[in-house]
């Protein structure tokens, strides 16, 4: 490991230089560490020895699950989709650092964009009724006694739309979403947890920035 980093130190430094220009919430050293972490994760992934352009969906999801405690498949896919800006099914090094910049330290504005993107399952720039229903469908305990077990979810979707759909077109545009979140910050993660909580942020940053420094 140390051999590798010794070999790559130069490369990493240059990479860090370029990438840190796009990831505004990390300084150069931090970016360096993130690149190293990326390489470690990538190394774990490529057992077969074949080089890949980045973290694949499975690896990325296990990171989200193990480090950031996410459980919802749909949301994790959404997060992967959001990180994977070029849609090549891999999170590249650049996408990794830039994504984490928002994920860990994003401003409210960045995070609104990020969350909206996660929730926009089909990428049509709207969160529709159906998408909401999909994301919320496991959020209520179903009463077996009820005739329509989905009734509660449907109602919840309607309540949410009533609250957030400012232009009354029956779906959430980004403007709707942004306006609602600015009004009530709790609505940022309205359709499922897609941002890490403070404790997992701290432990991840500690793991990446501190422990590696000590090595």
């Amino acid at each position: 490991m140390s051999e590798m980093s010794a070999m790559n130190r130069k490369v990493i430094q240059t990479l860090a230089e370029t990438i840190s220009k796009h990831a505004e919430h990390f300084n150069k050293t931090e970016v360096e560490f993130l690149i190293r972490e990326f390489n470690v994760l990538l190394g774990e992934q490529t057992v077969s020895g074949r080089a890949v352009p980045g973290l694949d969906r499975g690896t990325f999801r296990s990171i989200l699950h193990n480090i950031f405690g996410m459980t919802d498949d749909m949301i994790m896919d959404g997060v992967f989709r959001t990180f994977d800006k070029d849609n090549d099914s891999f999170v590249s090094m650049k996408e990794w650092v830039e994504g984490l910049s928002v994920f860990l330290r994003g401003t409210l504005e960045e995070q609104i964009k990020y969350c909206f993107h996660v929730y926009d399952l089909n990428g049509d720039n709207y969160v529709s009724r159906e998408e909401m229903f999909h994301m919320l469908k496991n959020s209520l305990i179903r009463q077996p006694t009820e005739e329509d077990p989905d009734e509660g979810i449907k109602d919840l979707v309607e309540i949410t739309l009533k609250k957030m759909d400012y232009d009354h077109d029956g779906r959430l545009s980004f403007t709707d979403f942004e306006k609602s979140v600015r009004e009530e910050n709790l609505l940022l993660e309205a359709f499922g947890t897609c941002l890490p909580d403070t404790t997992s942020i701290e432990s991840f940053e500690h793991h990446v920035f501190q422990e590696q420094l000590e090595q």
Partner: protein
Amino acid sequence: MLVSFSMYFHALNEQQKNNIPAAAMGLSLTRAAQWTPASSGTGKLESTPMNESLLKEILSFAEQFGSQHPQEALHVFQEPLQWSTTLVASDFKTDYDISDSDVQSNERDSEGLPLLQLSPPTVSVRSFSQLSKLIHLTEDKKVEEVQACLEENRYPVVKILGSSVASILQGEDTNTDVLSLVDKVKDQGKDSEVKVKLFLLLRNLDNKLLSKCLEEIAGKIRLDPTAVKNEVDSLKQSSIEGEKRVLKSIRYTSDYIFSNGCRAPPWRQVHGEMCYLVIEPCDTETLCVTCSTAGVFLNGGVKQEGEESGYERTSDVHRDLRTLLKSRSPHFAENINTQDFAVQEPPSTQKVQHVEPVDTEEQGQPQCSYEQRENNVNENARQSLYKTGGEKKYEPCPRWRNLGLTSPCGEAEEKKGSKSSGEEKSDGIQKRKRGAGAKGKMKAEFSASSLPGRLSSQKIKTSAGSMSLDAFSESSSESEEEEEQRRQESNTDLPSEYWQIQKLVKYLKGGDQTATVLTLCAMMDFNLMQETCQLAIRDVGGLEVLINLLDTDEVKCKIGSLKILKKISHNVQIRRAIVDMGGLQSIVRILDSPVKDLKALAAETISNVARFRRARRTVRQYGGIKKLVKLLDCVPNLASLSANQEKDVEVARCGALALWSCSKSTKNKEAIRKAGGIPLLGRLLKSPHENMLIPVVGTLQECASEESYRIAIQTEGMIKDLVKNLSSDNDELQMHCASAIFKCAECKQTRDLVREYKGLQPLASLLSKASNKQLLAAATGAIWKCSISMENVAKFQEYKAMETLVGLLTDQPEEVLVNVVGAVGEFARIPANKAIIRKCGGIKSLVNLLTGTNQALLVNVTNAVGACATDMDNMAIIDQLDGVRLVWSLLKNPSAEVQSSAAWALCPCINNAKDAGEMVRSLVGGLELIVNLLKSTNNEVLASICAAIAKIAKDKENLAVLTDHGVVPLLAKQTNTTDDRLRRHLAEAIGHCCMWGSNRASFGDAGAVAPLVRYLKSKDKKVHQSTAMALYQLSKDPNNCITMHEKGVVKPLIHIMGSDEDMLQEAAAGCVRNIRLLAQANRKAVLFN
């Protein structure tokens, strides 16, 4: 011939809660009559007073029917009414065809059948005219006959009118007129009109009977404090003192009785609880019992007041203590029956569940015919009778609720009711109407073959059942209790918000984090400041859920929950509910959270919840004060802040808000100080933001009632900031600052600091804000206390505060007046101000205020009047306004403070009045009053009265009157005091009272001389002066000289002669001279005799 009205009677058995449904048109009355437990198809009517009065009513109706409604009386019944009669053939006279023991009436129907037929013991009657005649025949057994008829003909209306007609008529609303009814029944047969009339007549009777029952029932059912007290008293007597002890002990948990007769603490009284008992039965463990208006039940163990957990209900609700005890203590149940109680108690009311099998069974087969169902019921009745021995004669009281609960229709209705309990809000009467109107619906639930009479009787039962919820409940399930509460709170229909909130709460209960957050956000969109929404959240169980969320790890859920709690906790009831549910502990715990938003929200919620004592205590007991104080510790420099620091400041602000609420309890003030809150508050006091300053200053002024805070405020340099904020443009902030200064300015250094920091001018200018009374009260208070320092008065004069203050002597609320008058009193110590007061018309205003009742105000007014009276011109006005008499009459005030300040005020008045002696004499009884006050035990009162007596005694005539009233011994009695202030005025009074008759000798006889000599050892110069004067006067009596000499008066007197005060010198010398003269005279006497 007995009448048909047994339809009203309804078998009811408290024990089984079974009712054997009666027939007919039935109004609620059906359940009023009381039946013995039916062992067969026919029940027996109990001979209770209620049944008897009902029977009489029915009897007179039937008896007069023939004469009052001849046409209807001829109507032939569809089916005969049959029963076993006591009449025999010989009782019948003309108009009857008698053969052997059988009798037939001559009157026959269209088919030639007799309308009355007797074949002993059975009689059958087919028209009202025959019925009336029969009743006339029975003579003294009328009632029995009616009773037998009712017992054996449960559904008389059906028999009279025929089931089809009856069912149609039942279906109609009570308001429908005769004609439309006739239309309806037209195709039912020819004589439909008569039938309708008959029906209406019957219904009138029914109504009459119903109201009669209501009257009787209304009187007794629901428990009230008196009923409970009576029961406890009777239990105490008969159970404990009697020879056969059935209980070891029975006692209340609290001896204190509130004015409404309840012993429960007020916050439990809102749940309808009246008192708690601890009962030790002979055979089981000790029972802790709650007596509430809904009934009696065991609780979790309320032994002493204050334990929250103890109030929970742990048993079923029983109707009264005896029933509860019987169910708990076999020994009690066994022995209590053998005792002779004044009130015969029915056997235990068992829990409602016991009957439920019957209900469900009935509900399960709504199509079954009536007969089947009746059999079911009877079956059940038999079974339970068998179980309970079957021998006992029961005397069930009417418990309408139970009827409502047990009747199948009632159940159905209940269910509907709970789904749309909005309707339940309507009172009983409305309900009845609705019941009649809704009959159509009910029909659908029952087969057409089921008897209409029954149908309607059930219907009515339901309405009565719901009525009972209001007034006659004896036992109730949890949900009903809630319903009842809701009803009490508002009488309007439930608004739509209620249902929406109920739905949201359902989602909260069953949602994951995401759904919960969404739901919470949706809930925030309601107007949470509106009471409807606040109470709706509580009533649908939302409060529990919100509080539970606080104990989760989900930050967002906690934030959402607190955002809602913060708002709804503006409601008093919600606050109490939060504390009752233990929510405050959770909120206090959140103060430790690392999330700033959470801390701020929690503190803000606490600031709302902690508006009552118990909540403030809870905050303290769970370490909330320390945590809140910690929140205050934010950034050192409040001037320039980063975004992050701003959040810290916001947290501190919320902390201050919470502390402000908490600081209304003395112990919390102490806790804040101990937690190091004062310097932190001092630091926040430098904030430039009003929203921060208001809670901070608010807390400080609240705490300034404590000496420790006053010192700290002064030493920590907070006066400067307080003074600075007096010039703020926020009224509230100004008010709190002024109020803080008001409380702190008791201390001279503080007063000086206020002047140094130029705080007097802003205070004076606050006087112009006369419209804001709170602010005015605080400002005038501060001025009053500051003007205790003369330098400050001089400053205030520069700002013309005096003139403004005099203007405020009229038309102000008392809290302002007290302070204004206090300030005027202080100002009036400067001669120039006395003139200003007079010129501004202040004397008249002051004298007018002497007639008030507020004691604090009277103390200040008398003080001010006294101060003004030192000016001769002022005194003339006071005299002219009869002010002296007013002041004098204040000596009668029960407050010692008022008494003494009035007496002090009298001194300058008497001094400066033109013809003081005459003025005093003109006050009838005044001198007696003042002498009697010498019996007071308050030294300040005594001192002031002595001072006044000294002034009064300058007039010889008045002194004579004083002497007559026994002033000498009373004064002498006080001489042993060690209070220098009292000694001084007492000696002065004694000195002045010596000038009449034999008073000098009397003082000597009363033993006043020796103590006076001791006064000379006092360190107070003023005591010496008045004592020397008194001794001089007393020394004019030889015996006193001897006493003085014996007590060694000469040496200190000689010492005093060296004083530089002329008066003192003279008096001391005079006294020594008198002693010396006596000694010389003595020697001469010895020498020459």
